């Protein structure tokens, strides 16, 4: 036998390792971040998206959002009868848009739980060179797409089946685009907060995102005007970007319709001196409150991340 053929694998590797320098680490640039995001989004899409599976499409994009809407519509019918029907458009739009909130908050949070408890992959994602939050965002984004489909179907059913009057020519498109961008960014920020919470909690936290969405439901004027709430709750609502997002979307899609933010006797009317917010006020308030929530979510995530590392929570499995 020659010396070469009797060489160990390690010796062979050393011979060929001339150009390898472990101290040289490539910089993480914007391109790398974007690639990480896309990869994670594609992964999330493959795992979550169900466009080609009719049963799953039905569950997530039809049954769930429509059921939520019908609960409210029937509540109106039971109490309001004909008078309730005027309120129907208000309720249906709020319920339709809420599909974004639930899917956005669930998407990121449940990615954490699934990757940690089911696939046991979280630790590998965490220690990869990609920014963890970017990967998380990518994974969660597919779920928001599912929510968008649900929202659209609910609106269509509302218009076609439930008789809601809608004039596409009257839509304020610029306002709609701006508030949707601001609103979705805020939803993602809330999703990050939920993800941070789920990093600290155990397996039973599956229901927490929906519970949190249900709580937010109370103070953002989703299905009833803020003016119905006590003053303190109205103030909380006005500090929440989702309130301005919903109000802005309503104003854009149904100009002149009932406002969720103002109204006679509301805190908004008392503070600003008029019953309805203008488009400009909505956009500014959305951007300001959205920025606050984004900042807060970033801080909360960092605290959660550090605590998770200190306590060894990244790779634990829980469950009772």
């Amino acid at each position, binding site marked *: 036998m020659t010396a070469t053929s009797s060489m160990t694998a390690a010796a062979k590797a050393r011979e060929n390792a001339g150009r390898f320098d472990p101290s040289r680490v490539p910089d993480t640039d914007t391109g790398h971040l974007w690639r990480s995001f896309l990869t994670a989004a594609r992964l999330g899409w493959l795992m979550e998206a*169900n466009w080609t599976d009719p*049963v*799953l499409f039905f*569950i*997530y994009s039809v*049954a*769930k*959002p429509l*059921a*939520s809407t*019908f*609960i*409210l519509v*029937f*509540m*109106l*019918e*039971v*109490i*309001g009868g004909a008078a*309730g029907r005027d*309120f129907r458009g208000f*309720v249906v739009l709020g319920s339709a848009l809420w599909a974004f909130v639930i899917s956005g908050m669930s998407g990121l949070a449940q990615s954490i739980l699934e990757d940690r*408890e*089911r696939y046991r992959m979280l630790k590998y994602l965490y220690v990869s060179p990609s920014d963890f939050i970017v990967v998380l965002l990518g994974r969660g984004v597919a779920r928001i797409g599912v929510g968008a489909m649900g929202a659209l179907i609910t609106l269509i059913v509302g218009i076609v089946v439930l008789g809601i009057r809608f004039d596409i020519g009257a839509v304020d498109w610029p306002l709609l685009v701006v508030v949707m961008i601001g609103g979705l960014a805020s939803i993602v920020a809330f999703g990050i907060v939920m993800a941070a*919470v789920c990093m*600290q*909690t*155990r*397996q*039973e*936290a*599956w*229901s*927490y995102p*929906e*519970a*949190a969405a*249900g*709580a937010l*439901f*109370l103070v953002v004027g*989703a*299905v*009833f*005007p803020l003016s*119905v*709430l006590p003053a303190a709750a109205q103030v909380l609502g006005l500090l929440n970007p989702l309130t301005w997002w919903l109000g802005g979307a309503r104003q854009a899609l149904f100009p002149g319709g009932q406002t969720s933010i103002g109204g006679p006797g509301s805190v908004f009317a008392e503070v600003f001196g008029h019953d309805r917010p203008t488009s400009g006020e909505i956009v500014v308030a959305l951007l300001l409150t959205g920025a606050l929530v984004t900042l807060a979510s970033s801080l909360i995530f960092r605290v959660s991340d550090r605590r998770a590392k200190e306590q060894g929570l990244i790779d634990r*499995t829980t*469950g*009772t």
Partner: protein
Amino acid sequence: MAETSLYVHRATRSPAEAANWDRRQVILNNLRSVAGRAYPRVRGISREKSWLAFEILLPFLSTSAFVFVYRALKAPPEYIGFVVLGGAMTAFWLNVVWMMAAQLYWDKDQGNLELFFAAPMDVMSVLFGMAIGGLVMSSTRAAAVLLIATVLYGVQFAVSQWFLLLLVFFLTLSALYGMGMALSSLFLMWGREAWHLTQLMVEPVYFISGLNFPVGRLGMIGALAIATIPLAVGLDAMRQLAFATGPGPTGTPPPAVEALILVVMTVVFIWVARLMLRSLERRARQEGRLSARGR
């Protein structure tokens, strides 16, 4: 090294003697297994306190949202009570969906299912233990939401038959958790698709169960729900009994009949659970998977 006496625990003279249990031993084993499986759930309550926020405060706020919808519509006060009662029962339903239906699927992933099957007890004991443990967990949550909302929103109960109300409540829980037991085997057999089916059991079931409004207003759908979903029939019966002076006929059977429906549901669901578990084990042993349809 440890004393050898440490390793001699049971004095059976032969494997045949150890293998032959009398009926008493079998029953005791199964009862103890129920307690054993319930134990982690009961202990888990105190191990992580986040449930105080997420399973009491947030559901309370979510229930409050529907209270304010009715207030915005200037509904009679009984409807506030309907929503509050529905909100409290939600705790049990979510527990059945997430911690019963999906639980064996999680157990399979963790390697527990194999050990359950390899142990001498009937695996139904495991399901019963899960149900009892889940019930204890959820009762604290439901009671908290009911109490806080009742006080805060001034809900006035008008109970005409306390005994029947309590009976209906317990029958609702037994039927709910019986359903959970049946679903846990089904979901294990269906793998990841079952995971998605749990989603179908949240808002759609809330709707057809009449969680926030009298289910009788749904006509035929309501009748179907009363016949098949424990939450629908139990909630309707409890509303009729708890708000006896409330709005007139709801278009649904009287509480006594609904109590009988719940008894039938309990029996049927538990029987179905047993049947499916046996079928599951048989298929798993034949096909070589712990779930008959794994992913």
